[in-house]
C-alpha cells in the first residue's frame, strides 16, 4: 500500500528512521516496532495523529504498552497500560496515575518524536494525516 511513512527519532535528538506505513496503524490502536533493539509503541488516534513512546511498561517490566487502549483524559491523549491500567500521557510519557513504579523508578515512558513523510510513490500532499487532522505528530518533548 502506498501512502505516508511513519518516521520516528529519539526525543533527545538523533536520526529520523522510517518504521512503518501510516496505513499499517489501526485508528485507535497501537503497534510495536523494533528499532536498533529498542521497542517502541506507536499509536494512531481517531483524529489521525501519531504518537511514539517506549514499549516497556515500568510497572511490570513487560513490553506491552503498544497493546494498551488509546484514549483521552481531559485534553491529554493517553495510553492505558494493559497490565495494571496506569495511564500515560502520549505527549510527554508521564504517568498520570502514579509518580513512581514499584522499584522506585520513575513511571514515565520515553517519548519519541514522530513525523510522516510521503512514501517514494506518494505525492507530497499525503503528508498531513487524513481526516483533516492538523499535523499533530510533532508532540514530543525534547
Amino acid at each position, binding site marked *: 500500500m502506498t501512502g505516508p511513512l511513519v518516521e520516528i527519532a529519539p526525543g533527545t535528538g538523533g536520526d529520523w528512521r522510517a*518504521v*512503518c506505513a501510516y496505513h*499499517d*496503524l*489501526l*485508528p*485507535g*490502536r497501537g*503497534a*510495536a*516496532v*523494533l*528499532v536498533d*533493539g529498542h*521497542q517502541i509503541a*506507536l499509536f494512531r*488516534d*481517531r*483524529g489521525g495523529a501519531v504518537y511514539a513512546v517506549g514499549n*516497556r511498561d515500568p510497572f*511490570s*517490566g*513487560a*513490553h*506491552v504498552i503498544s*497493546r*494498551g*487502549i*488509546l*484514549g*483521552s*483524559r*481531559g485534553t491529554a*491523549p*493517553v495510553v*492505558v497500560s*494493559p*497490565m495494571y*491500567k496506569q*495511564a500515560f500521557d502520549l505527549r510527554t510519557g508521564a504517568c*498520570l*496515575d*502514579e*509518580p*513512581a513504579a*514499584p*522499584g*522506585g*523508578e*520513575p513511571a514515565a515512558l520515553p517519548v519519541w518524536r514522530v513525523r510522516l513523510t510521503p512514501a517514494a510513490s506518494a505525492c507530497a500532499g499525503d503528508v498531513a494525516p487524513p481526516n483533516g487532522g492538523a499535523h499533530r505528530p510533532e508532540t514530543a518533548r525534547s
Partner: protein
Amino acid sequence: MTDTRRRLVLAGHGMAGQRLLEAVTDRAPGAWRITVLAEEPRPAYDRVHLTSWFSGTTAEDLSLWPAGFAAEHDIDLRLDDPVTAVDRAARTVTTRSGHTVAYDALVLATGSRPFVPPVPGHDTPGCFVYRTIEDLEAIRDRAAHTGVGTVVGGGLLGLEAAGALREMGLHTHVVEFAPRLMAVQVDEGGGAALRRRIEELGVVVHTGVGGQAVGAGADGTVDSLTLSDGRTLATGMVVFSAGVRPRDELARSCGLPVGERGGIVVDTRCRTADPHIWAVGECAQAADGRVHGLVAPAYAMAEAAAEDITGGDGAFTGYEAATKLKLLGVDVASFGDAHGTGDGALEVLYSNTRAGVYKKLVVAPDGRLLGGVLVGDAAAYDLLRPLAAAGTPPATPPEQLVLPTPEGGAAGPVTLPDEAVVCSCHNVTKGAVRAAVSEGGCADVAAVKRCTRAGTGCGSCVRMLTTLVDDELAAGGAPVTKGLCEHFAHTRAELFEIVRVKNVTTFSRLIDEHGSGGEGCDVCKPVVGSILATLNPRLGNSVHILDGEQAALQDTNDHFLANLQRNGSYSVVPRVPGGEITPEGLITIGEIARDFGLYTKITGGQRIDLFGATVDQLPLIWRRLVDAGFESGHAYGKALRTVKSCVGQTWCRYGVQDSVALAIELELRYRGLRSPHKVKAAVSGCARECAEARSKDFGVIATSAGWNLYVGGNGGMTPRHADLLLTDADHATLLRTIDRFLMFYVRTADRLERTAPWIERMEGGLEHLRAVVVDDALGICDELDALMARHTETYEDEWRATLEDPERLRRFVSFANAPGTPDPTVRFLPERGQIRPAREHEAVAAR
C-alpha cells in the same frame, strides 16, 4: 541601600534542607536573605528514590530543586563548599573554600554518613557506600568489570542495594550480622519469609555472620570478603550498608550538646542549645530522644524549624516508624510497635510458609492496633498503618484485614478516623484529603495530590487515596455523575438502551452523538465493545469483535483473543464444554503444549490453560487446535466462561439427573455471550452439590423431579452463595429462565458488576428479578428471548473466523516492522519440569 533582611544560613542541602527552604520562603517570603552551603556537587535530590538511578532515572529527574527557585527567593546556593567550622560567638560559619558567612539563624541539615565497619581492607578500591549519586556512579562503573557483588548489611538499604546489584546482572550476596534480614523492622517469622522472597530474586543470603576482612587481588582491588565464620566469598565489590551515623561533627566542634549515640540535641522546635542554631533531619536527635532515619520525620522536623524561625509555633515530638520495601517483587512492610514490646501487647498471626506469606499484628488489650509486620503480601499496609497511628480501637477488627483475602469487601478506608495519617511522607490526614475534595474543590486524585502533596512521596498510599477521593466525591455535594467516565454521562445500562433503541452501530457515532466526542478511554471503549458484541446481530454489524472499528474498543485480551500474563506472553484456553474431554482431545492438547513449549495447568473451570505463548505463536497454536475440533474458550473475555459439572447420574451412585449432558448443552448455548463481567456456571447431579453450583452466577442442581436453578453466586474476593430462583423446573422452563436471566443481566448491569451485586442493587432484589424473568412483569421477555435466540443463531467460533481472514491475522505480530521476530524480552526458565516466565533481571542475564 542596605539589605535589612535577616540572614539565614543552611548547612547541608539534602532532603530536609530543601524542605526547610520551601517552608521558610512559603511562610515568610522575602523576609530572609538565604545562603545555602552544600557539600555535594549538585542541589538537593530525592535520595529516597536514589536506586531508580540504576534503571534510567537521571539526576535531573531526581532533583528537588525547581528551576527558578533560587531566583524567585534570591537564594545564594554554593555547591561543593561545605561548612567546616561554626563560630557561635561571632555568629559566622567558615567554608572549605575559606569563605566566612554571617548568620542570624543557622540551620544544620547535614544528614548522616554511612557507617563502614573498621574491618581490615575496608578502604580497598572496590569498596563502596550507598548514599549519593556519586556513590552509585562508582558502583555502576565497578559493576561493569565484575560478576559478583556483596552487600554488607541486610537492612532496608542493604536489600535495596542488593536488588540493584542483582538488576545489573551481578551474582549477589548479602551478609547480615543479625540472625535475620531487616532485623530492626521485622520479627523472626517475618525475617524467614522475607529471606525466602529475597532468595527467590537470586540473591544469596548469609545471616548471623559479619564481614571480617576484605581481600585484594593482584591489581590492588577487591577480590574477596572473609566472613566471621571463616568462609571466604569471591567478590569483585563490597557495598557497606551497615547503618548510618549522624553528621554532628560541626555541632561537636562548636560545643553544642550531642546525644549519647550521636545526633545534635534539639527540642520540639528543633532548636539546639544555641537559640540561633537549629538542626533538622538525620543529623539531629529529636525531642523524643531518637535519631530518625527516614524522610517523613526529616520533613516534619524541617517544617517545625521553619515555623519557629518564621515566628510560628510548630513542633516535632516524635514519629512512629513505618517502612515498606521498594524492592521489585518483594512485599514487606512494618509499622508501629512491630515487635510487640508494649505492655500486655497481644499478637495476631497469619503465616503461610509455603506461599512465603507472613503477617503479624500487635494489638493492645483494649483492641487498639499497635503495629505489625507484613511479608509476602503487604496489601493491607495502606489501611493498617493509619489505624495503628489512630490510637482508638478500629471499627473493623484488624485481624480481618490480614486474612488471606486482604481486600475482603467491607473494610475500606471508610473505617479510618479523620485524624488517621494517610500519606506518611507528607503527613496528610484522611481529614485533609476529604477537605481538599469537599472544600478545596479537588475533583480527582491528581488535583488532591497537587493540593495536599499526599501521594507524591513514596507513592505507596496512592491506591488508598483514590478510594478516599472517590468516596468523598460520591458522598459530598459535588455533582457526582453516575456516568461511566469523562466521555459518557450514561451508565452501561443506559448506553445499552441507546444503542438498542437508536440502532447506533459504531463507537464513533455513539461518542460523537451521545458522549463527549474525542477518543474515549479504557473504561468506555470496552463497555461499548461489549454492548455492540451483544447487539451486533440485531444491528446488522459483523459479529466478529475484531472487525472494523470494533477492534479499537477491545481490551488487550479480547484484541488478541488470549489472556495477557505478567511477562507480556499470553495463555490459551480451548473450550472443554462441561469439562468432558476425550483421551484424543487430551492428547492433542498435550502435543500442542509440548510442541510449542507451553506451561500447562488445569483450571478451576475444568479445562486446560496453556501458558507462555507469544503473540506470534497464537495463530499457529490455534490452527492446530481448530483443526482438532477445539474452539475458543473465551477465557479472555467478559463473557460466559465455563459450565462446570459433576459426573452425574451416568456414573455416580447418587446422581438423579445427567448433569454432564445439561452442562454441555448450557455451555454450548451461551458460549461467546459478552456480558458486563465474566459469567460462570455449574450443574450438579444431586443435592450433594459436587460441582459447587451455588458458588456460580447461575447454578443448576438436579432433583428427582427436575432441576433447581440458583442465581447470583460467586467465589473470589467476596464469596456468596447463589439464591434459589426455580424449584423442580423442567428442561424447557429451565433454559428459558436462564436465557432471560442472562439477557436481563447483560442489558441492565453496570460495567464490571457480577450478577450478585447486580441483584443486590436491584430494587426489590431477587423477588423483582423473579417477577421480571419468570412472570414477565415488565413485558420484556419476548425481547430478551429474541436477543438470546439471535445470539445462539449467529454464534461463530472467534478463533476459526480469525484464522480464515488475513486482515484479522495481521495483528498477531510482535513488531509491525519485523513480522516473524518474537519479542526478545519474553523469556522463560525451567521450573518443576515446565517453563516459567524469567524475571526481568534473569532475562537480561540469559540474553
